[in-house]
């Protein structure tokens, strides 16, 4: 299966999406990420029972914070798929890439550039 997905996506592997803390998400934006999405197993299919459900809650927390501070909560998303579903993984990557292109770059980067100019 030689599937293509956008090359601007950096994959960070974690043992379970339940490992992803709201701080990981926020720090990614602080460091200039334009978007962050979590890809977890299907709901009900977590090997640790509820890791992906916890991840979804953290995505919601991060979204709320990013909306409040004017970065845009839509930049964070949660996806679920079966771990063998490569085509869906590629589809989500493309969808996320399109969504972020629509929103434009992380406004912090723009603010920094403006200041430097």
């Amino acid at each position, binding site marked *: 299966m030689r599937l293509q997905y956008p090359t601007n996506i950096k994959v960070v592997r974690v043992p379970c999406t339940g490992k992803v803390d*709201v701080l990981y998400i*926020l720090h990614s934006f602080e460091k200039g990420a334009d978007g962050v999405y979590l890809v977890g197993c299907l709901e009900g299919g977590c090997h640790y029972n509820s890791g992906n459900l916890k991840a979804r809650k953290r995505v919601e927390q991060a979204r709320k914070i*990013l909306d*409040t*501070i*004017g970065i845009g909560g839509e930049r964070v998303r949660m996806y679920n798929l079966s771990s063998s579903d490569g085509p869906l993984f590629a589809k989500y990557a493309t969808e996320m890439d399109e969504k972020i292109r629509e929103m434009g770059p992380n406004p912090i980067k723009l*603010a920094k550039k403006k*200041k430097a100019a």
Partner: protein
Amino acid sequence: MIVADKKPIEEIIEYLKGKQNILILGCNECVTVCEAGGKKEVGVLASALRMYFQNQGEDVKIDEVTLERQCDHEYLEEIRDRVDQYDAVVSLACGVGVQFMAEKYHSTHIYPGVNTCFLGATEERGLWTERCQACGQCILATTGGICPVSRCAKRLLNGPCGGSTTGKCEVKKGDEEIDCGWQLIVDRLQALDRLDEYETLCPVKDWSTDRAGGPRKVIREDLKQ
């Protein structure tokens, strides 16, 4: 424990407008357990504020420290050598910690980062409920271990009142019904086969130890030095 809830970030941003050097100060005790003001919440708030100010094109330095407690001198002393460098400290401790901090350090503005709510228990993650109002004269021995001061809307000592219907109080929290504290007490005494104790009238309580008498003190001569 003391239960607190996070303040909205918008409110904290309002306090901090125009500040350049900010310390977010957490506490490792109650507010950590109720996930309102521990190391994690310090990190989240600091990160959110950094991004907010960067996005506004402002250069604001935001540091993070979490102390073991903010209601004891020895732990607050740990930041004495650095506190002067900040023009604002947001304390995520309960109201006690915020005040102790403000009493000790006068050179810096201290702002509260949480809303301190009550003395309560963790029923489950994300759900905390009130259990005690620190009345200073505990009467749990006679009420089956259920506190009428905090669980009865009218703080009745000989309840229930006429507003108790099918186990629910006539007072509601918005649309949400609350259990009648006195029905809980009666049910508990019955389950313990101690219903006869319910017949004994509770004498007039000495409320001078309650909040109405102004700020309170506990003095222990056996411990004082």
